[in-house]
């Protein structure tokens, strides 16, 4: 049982407030036939996005990973708006996203090149650089970080993810008590 009082400026309380607000909004939007599988899936996606977004917003742009998450979410919603409305601007939007993917692939290629150089130097760092690749794919924005920043960002990312899970669990438990 936590005896912690909710500090209004803590990450946990900022996230909780934001996420709850988003949940209320999502719940208000639900149509009458709210238990069809499609509806449930759409709501699942909206909730998951709201959770990730709420956490990233609570961290603001102080962290590379939160900036990367917000950027990803914004560009995804921009693409969706473009495809639902104006068809003419889709081409320009898709080209922008392809360029960004190429940049990150180039980054990755550069990192792999560096890995082969490091292999000739230090035995220790071989495993590190290769496993860092796996980590880069899991941490938002990880592709463009150097190893030090990656490890630092990972630690913060894990702290935030555990807070996110903790709060979501609490909310789910309270909802299921009814």
């Amino acid at each position, binding site marked *: 049982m*936590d005896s*912690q*009082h*909710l500090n209004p400026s803590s990450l946990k*309380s900022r996230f*909780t*407030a934001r996420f*709850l607000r988003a*949940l*209320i909004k*999502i*719940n208000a939007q*639900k149509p009458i036939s709210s*238990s069809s599988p499609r*509806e*449930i*899936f759409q*709501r*699942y996606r909206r*909730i*998951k996005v709201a*959770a*990730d977004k709420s956490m990233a917003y609570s961290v603001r742009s102080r962290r590379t990973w939160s900036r990367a998450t917000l950027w990803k979410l914004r560009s995804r919603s921009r693409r969706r708006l473009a495809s639902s409305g104006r068809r003419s601007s889709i081409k320009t939007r898709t080209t922008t996203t392809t360029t960004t993917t190429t940049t990150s692939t180039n980054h990755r290629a550069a990192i792999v090149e*560096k890995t082969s*150089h*490091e292999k*000739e*130097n*230090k035995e*220790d*760092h071989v*495993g*590190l650089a290769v*496993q*860092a690749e*796996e*980590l880069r794919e*899991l*941490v938002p924005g990880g592709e463009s970080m150097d*190893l*030090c920043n990656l*490890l*630092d960002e*990972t*630690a913060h990312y*894990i*702290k935030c*993810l*555990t807070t*996110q*899970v903790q709060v*979501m*669990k*609490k*909310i*789910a438990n*309270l*909802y*299921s008590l*009814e």
Partner: protein
Amino acid sequence: MSGRRSRSKQSSVSSITDDQITDLVSKLQHLIPELRRRRFDKVSTSKVLQETCNYIRSLHREVEDLSDRLSQLLASTDSDSDQAAIIRSLLMQ
């Protein structure tokens, strides 16, 4: 880029940040439940990174499962008064 030049630059850079990396890796070790118990054992960097990846993946899965659960729960929740009660109890802790 000349191979020799970049190699020497890299070895000097990596020797400077070696301690930093060790510190950062041990910081990660403390965050991962699997490895926290083995605080006094020497856990290899490779193992820490592997467990970190596994832990992040399991956290992602938990978020997905909880989102799924919440979407089902929201479907069955109707009244606003229940919601207000939930919010109040959460924020008052």
